[in-house]
């Protein structure tokens, strides 16, 4: 065996080759390099020295959950702990199944490697949580996050044990139903404590984005299949829906949802603004998901379907077992992209429907008598942007991980 030894170029060589190859390169490097350093220093100074973050810490509850009654906060805590347990269970079961199948990526890792893998995946979220917690002066949020974390760890351990065992099919089916019901239950439990209409702050952005994602995916899938259907009526209706909804800006749809409904339905019966926002998000995103899924369906070679037919599978099974899994795998990046954009678009609902979401709250608090007239809108907007970036970036990283796992683009 011969090894080809490649000497790594020294740092200086690298700099000369990449940054100062020609005089023009040198000028560009100096100009934009100093610009970048200047912007970087100004940014760091703003965040750590000049930024007046008191407005955030004083108003943290308003920004996070709006006017959620203080004595009902326990409902959020309970729901979060249950969701932590739930997420841990799912992660554990998936990991356990991979161990059983021998496809586990983490089984061969040392503890340290596993910890650093987890740190890379969730370090940002954990750091953000710690940052937010450091701004509070009560113990409630600390306990809530601690118990959620404990719930996640416990769920992961139990899930790992369940995952490696082979269970009778009725048990695993029941398990799937339970896993689907738990988040729905958590949602309804919180809604029973405080009506959906009063969900505000970042809680509104997160929960309505989650509801929109969960509801729009099946609808989008049906629309995509409808558009490929051989039934003329179904196909026509799907096309009409997709094109009509995709043709209107989301903001316009939200404004319509805000102002037009009460002229058709009496005000007392009209659903709350939060429900309207979720319905609009769902209908809007479904049209995009439909087109993304259709793209995925087209990317599956016709031979796959023909082979499935040759095996004697029914049309439903052809779709469910052969075509859809490949189609959906191929469009993971686009789907996650759509969901990230939905997450950020929830701020439009705040504006169009007058919901006190994170962005609106960030604007409103700058007018408080302690803070007005000091240009604090910059601090609050940076804070809002940071929270949305953490959410979007984590989603994007997780989707890349899923892609690698499923081998998108490599097989």
């Amino acid at each position, binding site marked *: 065996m011969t090894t080809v030894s490649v000497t790594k170029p020294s740092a200086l060589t690298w700099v000369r080759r990449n940054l100062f190859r020609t005089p023009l390169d040198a000028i560009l490097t100096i100009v934009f390099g100093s610009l970048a350093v200047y912007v970087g220093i100004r940014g760091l100074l703003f965040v750590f020295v000049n930024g007046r973050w008191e407005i955030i810490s004083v108003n943290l509850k308003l920004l996070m959950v709006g006017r959620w009654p203080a004595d009902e906060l326990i409902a959020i805590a309970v729901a979060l702990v249950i969701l932590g347990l739930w997420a841990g269970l799912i992660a554990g079961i998936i990991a356990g199944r991979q161990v059983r199948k021998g496809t586990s990526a983490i089984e061969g890792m040392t503890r340290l490697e596993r910890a650093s893998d987890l740190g890379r995946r969730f370090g940002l979220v954990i750091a953000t949580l710690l940052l937010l917690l450091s701004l509070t002066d009560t113990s409630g949020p600390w306990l809530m996050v601690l118990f959620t974390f404990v719930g996640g760890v416990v769920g992961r351990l139990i899930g790992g044990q369940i995952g490696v065992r082979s269970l009778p099919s009725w048990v695993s089916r029941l398990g799937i139903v339970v896993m689907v019901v738990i988040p729905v239950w958590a949602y309804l439990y919180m809604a029973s404590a405080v009506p959906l209409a009063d969900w505000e702050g970042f809680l509104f952005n997160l929960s309505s984005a989650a509801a929109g994602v969960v509801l729009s995916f099946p609808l989008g899938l049906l629309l995509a299949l409808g558009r490929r259907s051989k039934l003329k009526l179904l196909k026509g209706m799907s096309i009409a829906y997709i094109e009509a909804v995709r043709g209107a800006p989301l903001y316009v749809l939200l404004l319509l949802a805000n102002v037009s409904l*009460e002229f058709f339905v009496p005000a007392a019966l009209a659903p709350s603004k939060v429900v309207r926002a979720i319905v609009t998000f769902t209908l809007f995103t479904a049209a995009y998901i439909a087109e993304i899924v259709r793209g995925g369906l087209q990317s599956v070679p016709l031979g796959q379907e023909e082979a499935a037919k040759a095996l004697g599978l029914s049309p439903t099974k052809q779709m469910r077992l052969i075509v859809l899994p490949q189609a959906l795998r191929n469009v993971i990046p686009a789907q996650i992209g759509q969901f990230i954009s939905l997450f950020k678009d929830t701020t439009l609902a705040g504006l169009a429907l007058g919901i006190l979401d994170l962005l609106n709250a960030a604007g409103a608090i700058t007018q408080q008598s302690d803070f007005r007239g000091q240009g604090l809108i910059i601090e609050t907007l940076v804070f809002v942007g940071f929270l949305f970036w953490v959410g979007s970036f984590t989603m994007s990283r997780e989707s890349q991980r899923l892609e690698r796992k499923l081998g998108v683009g490599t097989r």
Partner: protein
Amino acid sequence: MKLRKLLVVLTALTLVLAACTSDDGDTTTTAAAADAADAGGEEMTSLLDEVIARGELKCGTRDALTGFAVLTEEGDHVGFDSDFCRVIAAAVLGDAEAVDHVDLETADRFTALQSGQVDVLSRNTTWTASRDGSEGATFLTVTYYDGQGMMVTADSGYAGIADMDGVIVCVAKGTTTEGNAAAEADRLGLDWEVRPFDDNDLIQEAFGAGQCDGWSADSSALTGIRADQPDGPDSVVILPDVFSKEPLAPLVLDGDTAWAQAVNWAILATITAEEWGITSANVDTFLDSDDSNIRKFLGASFEDSDGNETTLDAGLGLPTDFAYQVIKQVGNYGEIFDRHLAPLGLERGVNALWTDGGLLYSPPYR
């Protein structure tokens, strides 16, 4: 085979849908009938009865206007406009806190009123003819007489807006301010570039950076802004010119006189109380006042012409002690003003009582 399955599913779906819609249908018909009765004016069910039955007032307001309505850390609405929401709730329901403050954007405030999302708007709204006429709104007693002014830096040397030619005037977007500034420039034959911004804080940044020669807004707002200047209030000057009339008034929907009267008298009560010097602190001492007009006003008993003890029910559909509740729980006009607007450095000016040379005047309560 497949087709039959599909048909069965479709039929089932249709049945379910039909059941749902017929349910909805019933309720909407009754509600529509109620609406029709409203519109007809005969056997009208007033919003007044509805609010009393509901036990809560839905008051259209906002969450970020210094002095008028601001959201506190605890999520409460605090301000001049918010207090008038409380005045109405105290009068109609006897509880100043029975208010659902509905935050509305400037653009959809009238729609919210028309669609019944809110019972009343107390949202810094200028009373204009076209709003009165075309938005289906009835404006009530003016709570604040405002006017648009101009603020410049102290070293700019402008003595009045007539000096300002070829300048950039920064304003907040989406209000009458923008149009007023352009109209005033036209009228005076001046060349102004009116530059709209989304937010006062953004104007502050631009103004501080010297991107605006003038900052135009309602005088009340400018006074607050001036007090908050980073270089101190003396670094800027509010020019003496006031070039628009901005009477800010609460409003209700057209065609519901009973409700409009109830809201109106709740507001007038704050003015009447100030005329008599009744405040939230001393209102109890007035209950046995020698002046029978004051006793009538507060719902205390008085002797009628036949010598019987009685209380005055003016027939407004309000409890006889509504004025007492308003003053006890919220305060008179002067107290509300002093609580929210005086700290900004606003003078009473034209918003003083008529006896002090201002414009506030309440019809007599008797």
